[in-house]
């Protein structure tokens, strides 16, 4: 028995080395990049240890002082942290609510357009902002809302809604709305693509049958289009929930200024300002870990709910 097993093993390992030799080119073409992602994607996770240390840059790892959860305790005592958490959740929730539903409505409306040239033009135009950087978008938003010559103020004053131009960018209470609307302006068309593709994939016979039965266009949308793209809607929803807390910080950073910082600082910005701005690497890392943990929790939760209702899983 033992001998047979041993022989099998030797055979197998011989085969392994033989294949390895014949596939050395394939290994040469992929292994360097495994090392690559190990360095750039896996090694930083090791940096999480910093959150549990009183990390001093330049000292070797074994000379760092371990202080357990001290930074996390400090975090939960910082008022600014709760503001950042509030801002993150508020803006991600608004983003989810509108950034997710509006592209669906847009895709359905676009699908109802029979004039194919008009449809193509609308698509081409609305996809464009997606390819423009947030730096440019922030500049555009600032310009549009500015008090001298911004179109919004010109319109509002011209229509008599306002007596004089209003400083939208200087009011904290407007910041969440500005971020959400800019995001919709930038991504609405692009995010509609996936729903348009789903609608295009629906069986035309369903619509024919509905027409024969005398169903109006609204009924067709309600009873055929919407149920038809339900799976797509659900998958996109789950993915969005998974990214709920990772809303990024680019738009907040570019659109904010000192006057609205109380409403603009999101968790990642908070981590950036503390961690790199003030050189408190350990504290910044702790914020980042908190962010990731909440994000993973939300993804698992959303996936669990999804599985319960549709017997499918996105992960």
């Amino acid at each position, binding site marked *: 028995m033992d001998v047979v097993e041993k022989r099998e093993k030797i055979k197998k390992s011989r085969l392994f080395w033989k294949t*390895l030799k014949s*596939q050395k*080119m394939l290994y040469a*073409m*992929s292994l360097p*990049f*495994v090392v*690559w*992602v*190990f360095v*750039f*994607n896996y090694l*930083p996770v090791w*940096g*999480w240890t*910093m959150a549990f240390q009183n990390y001093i840059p330049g000292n070797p790892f074994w000379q760092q002082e371990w202080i357990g959860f001290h930074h996390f305790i400090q975090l939960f005592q910082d008022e600014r942290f709760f503001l950042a958490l509030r801002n993150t959740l508020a803006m991600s929730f608004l983003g989810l609510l509108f950034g997710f539903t509006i592209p669906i409505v*847009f895709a359905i*409306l*676009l699908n*109802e*357009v029979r*004039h194919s040239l*008009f449809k193509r033009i609308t698509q*081409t135009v*609305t996809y*464009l902002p997606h*390819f*423009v*950087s947030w*730096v*440019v978008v*922030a*500049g*555009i938003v*600032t*310009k*549009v809302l500015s008090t*001298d*010559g911004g*179109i919004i103020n010109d319109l509002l004053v011209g229509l008599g809604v306002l007596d004089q131009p209003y400083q939208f*960018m*200087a009011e904290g209470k407007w910041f969440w709305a500005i971020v959400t609307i800019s995001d919709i*302006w930038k991504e609405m068309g692009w995010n509609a*693509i996936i729903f348009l*593709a789903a609608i295009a994939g629906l069986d035309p016979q369903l619509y024919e049958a509905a027409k024969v039965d*005398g169903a*109006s*266009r609204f009924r067709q949308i309600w009873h055929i289009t919407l149920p038809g793209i339900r799976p797509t809607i659900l*998958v996109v929803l789950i*993915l969005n929930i998974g990214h709920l807390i990772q809303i990024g910080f*680019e738009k907040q950073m570019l659109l904010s*200024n*000192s*006057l609205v*910082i109380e409403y603009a600082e999101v968790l990642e910005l908070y981590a950036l300002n503390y*961690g790199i*701005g003030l050189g408190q690497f350990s504290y*910044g890392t702790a914020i980042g*870990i908190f962010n*990731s943990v909440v994000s993973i929790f939300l993804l698992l939760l959303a996936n669990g709910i999804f599985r319960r209702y549709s017997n499918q899983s996105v992960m």
Partner: protein
Amino acid sequence: MANPSDLYQTTVREKIFDVLNYLFLSIVIVITLYPFLNVLAISLNDSTDTVRGGIYIWPREFTLNNYLEIMKYDNLVTGFVNSVLRTVIGTVLGVFIQAMVAFTLSRTDFQGRRFVSTVIVLTMYFSGGLIPGYMLIRDLGLINSFWVYILPGLVSAFNIIIIRSFMDGLPFSLQESAKMDGANDFVIFYRIILPLCKPVLATIALFVAVGQWNSWFDTYLYNSMNESLTTLQYELMKILDNTSMGGSQDANSMRPNDEQQMNRVSPQSIKMAITMVTVIPIIMVYPFVQRYFIQGMTLGAVKQ
């Protein structure tokens, strides 16, 4: 069948719906395009005239001076060159490497496939975060270096998956016959597979190129101390930022605060001209490549 009066009503309602729909979508088009046209008009308008206000989508006193003016700023020229360089180098290298890794993963006979695939795909689901990432780049000595623009994002799991799914659709017999002729795996990849993958590679190349062209945060975080490594987006960010709120400086300690010749008093026209310079390459390329973008978007969505 519905009775005639019902049918009449629905057609009227549908007509109204159609009109409203076209109207609504036209408004969407206007809202999307207006800011770009406004920026373009101001950038082409005489800068002292612009101060009088009232420039919307057409320049009142046409001039190219604003564009000539911004060419005098060294940082902008350097930034432009660096942005072009990072876009070209990042795209060529990135697409080649991603295609190569995708090729090894599309080979079902490759015995390391499982391992390589797992290690790379997992990177889509976690990230070390901002600070540890920064520390790594610092420890690797990539701060104040052009390569920080290229190296970290070179092996993108998402792109590799998209390319691989395209390669999976190619018949394996092509490779077999080449193997008979004694070609090694790299030659098969380079000579046979790569040319067949042109559509998907075009898509990926465009995604990578737009990402490279639009990045500013890496310049801000890693190379803001070194003017010779600046990028166009970062220069634009600095100019817009320092003047966006009537010149008020940001309390945020991270914001750059260097005393460049144009930061304080830069007129709107200059800002708008620079904005146009960063947007024009995208607008010019975009209509021709839209097809590929959409293809990639739907491909990616299916794979998710």
